[in-house]
């Protein structure tokens, strides 16, 4: 077995306040996030664990409905939050309506404007922006010693990380274009004065977003402040996909702290009366553990056995935390 050295990472790097577990779907990211948050809270730190996954499982793992309710106390020092993007979008809409009502002194919004507001909220990128916005809010606001992100599955995590550079490029394009446009006389003649003001307002809004995103992505890619762990299991496809992902993450400069192996079946079962599925899994595990060790070597920080039941509720989460971090 590999010596457990996860706790030392936290002891040696007290500045790493942003904790993330990445990996394919169904490997135990949420479980590890919850157990880590539990451990840190027990050590006396104020911890916020939050999820940006629209199909989040924090509610299920803590057995408490926290969806869209803001930071909710789970136990002393431990707060959990699940972001409800739809609610956020509805809030945007209401803001717009209020502005219109105030501006024109109306009691109700005219039908054609209402349908416009509805359609704007339906734009595909809206949900993403809403989630991202909320994450930026959380990070920028502060108030906690530790932030544990319960990340979405691989593809999407990458997508969120790349979002910053995407927005950056996007805004860059828009500003560049507008400057270019000004050079065209015939266009300058067409653009009316008020339209220009309008566009400047949009541009300012974009620049504001860009600034916030830069701030949050700086934190995410700052080795001093961020600890990023990959969850793996001893299976062929998982190892392959993780290697691919690790390479992509490094392209986004996400500092990798190490790997945690999950779902290990106790080897002593080999000599007992076990069903075939388990016997084969043990054989597969033996082989792929060798592969993992030769591939990831000293970057492996912990090996976590499969529990006999799923991890939900604080007593099970505590058990998982003790397996991951030793006694505390």
């Amino acid at each position, binding site marked *: 077995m590999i010596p457990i050295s996860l706790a030392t990472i936290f002891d040696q790097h007290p500045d790493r306040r942003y904790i993330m577990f990445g990996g394919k779907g169904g490997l135990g990211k949420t479980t590890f996030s919850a157990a880590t948050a539990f451990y840190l809270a027990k050590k006396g730190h104020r911890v916020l664990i939050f999820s940006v996954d629209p199909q989040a499982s924090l509610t299920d793992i803590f057995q408490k409905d926290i969806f869209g309710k803001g930071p909710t106390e789970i136990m002393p020092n431990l707060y959990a939050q699940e972001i409800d993007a739809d609610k956020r979008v509805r809030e945007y809409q209401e803001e717009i309506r209020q502005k219109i009502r105030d501006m024109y002194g109306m009691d109700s919004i005219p039908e054609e404007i209402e349908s416009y507001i509805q359609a704007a909220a339906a734009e595909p990128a809206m949900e993403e922006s809403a989630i991202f916005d909320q994450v930026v809010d959380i990070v920028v606001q502060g108030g906690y010693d530790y932030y544990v992100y319960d990340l979405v599955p691989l593809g999407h995590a990458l997508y969120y990380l790349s979002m910053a550079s995407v927005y950056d490029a*996007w805004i860059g394009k828009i500003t560049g274009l507008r400057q270019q446009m000004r050079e065209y006389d015939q266009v300058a003649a067409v653009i009316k004065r008020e339209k220009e003001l309008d566009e400047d307002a949009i541009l300012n809004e974009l620049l504001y977003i860009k600034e916030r995103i830069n701030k949050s992505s700086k934190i995410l890619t700052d080795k001093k402040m961020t600890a990023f762990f990959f969850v793996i299991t001893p299976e062929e496809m998982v190892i392959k996909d993780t290697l691919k992902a690790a390479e992509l993450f490094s392209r986004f400069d996400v500092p990798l702290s190490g790997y945690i192996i999950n779902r290990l079946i106790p080897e002593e079962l080999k000599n007992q009366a076990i*069903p075939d599925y388990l016997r084969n899994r043990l054989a597969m595990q033996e082989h792929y553990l060798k592969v993992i060790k030769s591939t990831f070597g000293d970057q492996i920080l912990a090996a976590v056995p499969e529990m*006999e039941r799923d991890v939900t509720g604080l007593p099970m989460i505590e058990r998982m935390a003790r397996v991951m971090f030793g006694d505390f």
Partner: protein
Amino acid sequence: MGGITKDMNRFMEEHPRLKYVFFGGKGGVGKTVMAGAAALWAARQGKKTLLASTNPVHSLSNLLEKDVFGKVAMVCDEQNCYAFEIDTKDTIERSKQEIREKINWFLKFADITTKAEDFIESATMNPAFEESAMFENMMEIMFKDEYDFYVFDTAPTANARRLLGMSKVYSMWVEKMLRSRQEARSLREMLSFSKKEEKDPLLDYLLTFRDRMGKAKELLTDESLTAFFFVTLPEALPIAVITRFINWFHEFGIPVGGVVVNGLIQKELVGTDAPEFVQNRLKMQQEHMDEIWRIFGDRVRSLVPLFETEVKGAAMLNRTVEYLFARHGS
């Protein structure tokens, strides 16, 4: 307690015109495997079947032990069964090309002599572009109508929900664009000296697009044609996820075909002398099965066991078919 009152076969008999089948659920529950098995079954019913992956992270090639990325290939030597992983790179390139043509036309229309390329780049960098491209692609496959039966292996649930919810979103979006286009057009006609009706490809495109969206929505919400199945393991988190999902799908008016339980440890293979580790897992699964019967009741269609090896290739897929379409009760 519990038991299947309406199995997959009966569901299929009650929906003889069924044509579009989706499998959704939490990551790691075996959606791809079930999609593969359903496609094989359909092909053996004499239906020309396409198994398509709309997952950004494909796993069909791995399941079929055959490269189907961006190309259609036969599944397990089954004459009627084909598989295909959508290559988003192609889709995005194609969409970019379409947008390029439209933007070029529009710039000419507006008498702006700027390079369209920058506009196109900024339009296609939109973070939601890939997802839209994927949806476009799914629609295209459906409208080509080259097959009798389609099985889609969809991305983890959140995506699937959005993918399908999107049709409503797009219609609204297009409506909005249409209105502003029509305003622009009438303004232009008012201002132009010639007063002659000009052809407007952009408007034509928007109208076509809206019709396509409308048609897709019609197909996806027609319960005689479409069924969305949810796969779960007998474990807390996957159950919680699909419980939430089934409610969401109701809101969208997307027909839920039922629930497939995967990964069941077979009791009869666990001896009384089995170690505590195994006994405990079995006990946990039984507790969750009680929960599954309680929550999903007569919507459970199949119980698929935990096989002794992972499901890959024709032999294992065929075993999965047997369980997915096993007859229960009378």
